[in-house]
């Protein structure tokens, strides 16, 4: 059975700078998301968007203060969260949504999937959900055989956990003791299906990793510092050559699977509870206030600075030109 990760995290073991950085990252993710939804409502961004509101603590906690640029991530279907936490410039992400040449793909129109920033270890994502599992063992194998201490983080949702490649991937990671960390963002619903409806093991997805002899934990995904602690331990394990770790982080999405999803399959009171009592941003803010790390004024300063940064990023992305039609013929081969 998966271990429920518990730890009395001493806030004072973190520097004020680091704590502010967590908060700034979470606010950046939330505001990025809200502004993107606005742009969609204004008709400037087409296609599907999978909002990451509700799991900012998980993304910030698993990346900030623990990963370096050279560590690899494969983000998931709510992956703007992770891309922002890994430091991909916001104008580049907006550029991908707006389809302008400012985007990481220089106008191909990547959205949540297909943005990439190799310089920051952001290696992309597949539209065929869950196919990053096998790529992640490849990058982890690469680090091992090249003798680097680079760690690969593979993000996925409870829905993607059903994909067959997860099991091939876990077996490889276990066999070759690879420096890969699986982060299952369990927000309970794969579009409309609750994970207990589609998974044979109902209790914890992390139990599956136990079957492959892989260290596994269940953690409150909305507790930023707790997530940070468990990932730090996993990274240490990976760097010491002790192999993979599987972390099931429990969270919830505040919005539907995609914008436009009526989201009526979730009981209203359940959603309300997550929004009111388990909002990662609200709770982290409270934690910092209670520990005297941050004042209302300082929060307001951060919020304003992030808001300005986002508006500027949108302007840069919007001002960039659309690609030349010839763009589609570039980059197929080296």
């Amino acid at each position, binding site marked *: 059975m998966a271990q429920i990760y518990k730890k009395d995290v001493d806030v004072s073991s973190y520097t004020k700078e680091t704590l502010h950085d967590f908060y700034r990252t979470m606010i950046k993710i939330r505001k990025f998301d809200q502004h993107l939804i606005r742009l969609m409502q204004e008709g400037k961004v087409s296609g599907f968007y999978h909002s990451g509101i509700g799991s900012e603590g998980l993304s910030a906690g698993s990346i900030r203060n623990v990963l370096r640029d050279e560590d*690899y991530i494969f983000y998931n279907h709510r992956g703007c969260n992770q891309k922002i936490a890994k430091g991909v410039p916001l104008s580049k992400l907006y550029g991908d949504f707006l389809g302008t040449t400012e*985007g*990481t*793909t*220089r106008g*191909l129109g*990547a959205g949540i999937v*297909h*943005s*990439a920033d*190799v310089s920051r270890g952001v*290696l*992309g994502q*597949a*539209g*065929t959900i869950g*196919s990053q*599992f*096998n*790529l*992640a*063992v*490849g*990058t*982890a*194998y*690469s*680090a091992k*055989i*090249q003798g680097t201490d*680079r760690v*690969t983080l593979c993000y996925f949702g409870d829905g993607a956990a059903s994909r*067959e*490649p997860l099991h*091939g*991937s876990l*077996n*490889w990671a276990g*066999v070759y003791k690879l420096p890969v960390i699986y982060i299952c963002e369990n927000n309970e619903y794969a579009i409309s299906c609750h994970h207990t409806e589609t998974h044979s093991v109902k209790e914890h997805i992390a139990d599956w990793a136990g079957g492959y002899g892989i260290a596994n934990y269940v953690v409150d995904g909305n507790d930023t510092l707790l997530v940070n602690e468990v990932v730090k331990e996993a990274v240490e394990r990976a760097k010491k050559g002790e192999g993979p770790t599987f972390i099931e982080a429990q969270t919830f999405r505040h919005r539907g699977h995609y914008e436009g999803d009526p989201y009526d399959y979730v009981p209203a009171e359940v959603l309300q509870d997550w929004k009111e009592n388990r909002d990662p941003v609200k709770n982290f803010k409270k934690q910092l206030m209670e520990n005297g790390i941050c004042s209302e004024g300082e929060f307001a300063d951060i919020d304003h600075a992030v808001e300005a940064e986002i508006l500027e990023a949108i302007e840069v992305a919007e001002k960039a030109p659309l690609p030349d039609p010839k763009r589609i013929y*570039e*980059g*197929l*081969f*080296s």
Partner: protein
Amino acid sequence: MRKINMRQAIIEALSEEMERDPKTVLFGEDVGKFGGVFGATKGLHDKFGERVFDTPIAETTIVGAAVGMALTGLRPIPELQFGDFVGIAFDEVYNKLGKWRWMHGGTMDMPVTLRLPIGIAGGSGPEHSQSPQALFMHGPGLHIVVPSTPYDAKGLLKTAIRNNDAVLFFEHKVLYDMKGEVPEEEYLIPLGKADVKREGSDVTILATALQVHTALKAAKTLAENGVEAEVVDLRSLAPLDKETILTSVRKTGRVVIVHEEPKTGGSGAEIAAQISEEAMFDLQAPIKRIGSPDVPIAQSIYLEQFYRPSEEQIVTTVNELMEY
């Protein structure tokens, strides 16, 4: 010049390229200490140690991991024990290997050489005898190489490994034992270039893999009756060497395309379409295709021979074309 078989030529190519570049890694089912079920990786594990490793039976993971390795600085050479198994890894080949680079803006390299044994070879049955290469002519971003001789196999494989793009390298099982001249000194053959294996003026026979040899035998028989066939070994299906194909077609005015793939939707269908688009008025007769029947390949050794294009079929078809 010395003569070696295609198995030895492939081992030499792999060995030389692995020696040349420490970033190369070779892996697949039983490719390590066993040396591969067709012996095409024999001795490489002893020579290169952990850079040649056995994997679990997991084709999806083999190809997916190769993609991940390629993105992060390695030059992986995965093997699928039988080309038929590519169906298990279809998403990884079709959507990842060929498209990852493009769909992420063209900023990453994909130096993967995926080796896939193909073809009918002694009662292997419907899931171990197929030639699925045409499936991937439809998928952008993939080079498709199909050698027919030890010389070509070595030169093309070395180029494929050095290439920074994804290459699907199809090897016909019957050819592993076929000997041919291979120089001791190093050489490379560019991808995407067909080879005229026999010159002729009356008809063009386009073929790949084992069928190149069947076509050459047929050409010899035809020549005895005064018909000179030009045999073009396509060597690459993607990119397709249209220039060589059209030059030959314009010279002879008659075309037969021969392959062991089912006729419907086989590589010949695409090639015939391209010829008719560009050289219709140079033709003196309809384009003919000889492929396998559109049914699964029987396990029976007696029956399976009827799936493989024969010398007689080629001769008969050419003679029909000569009547126009």
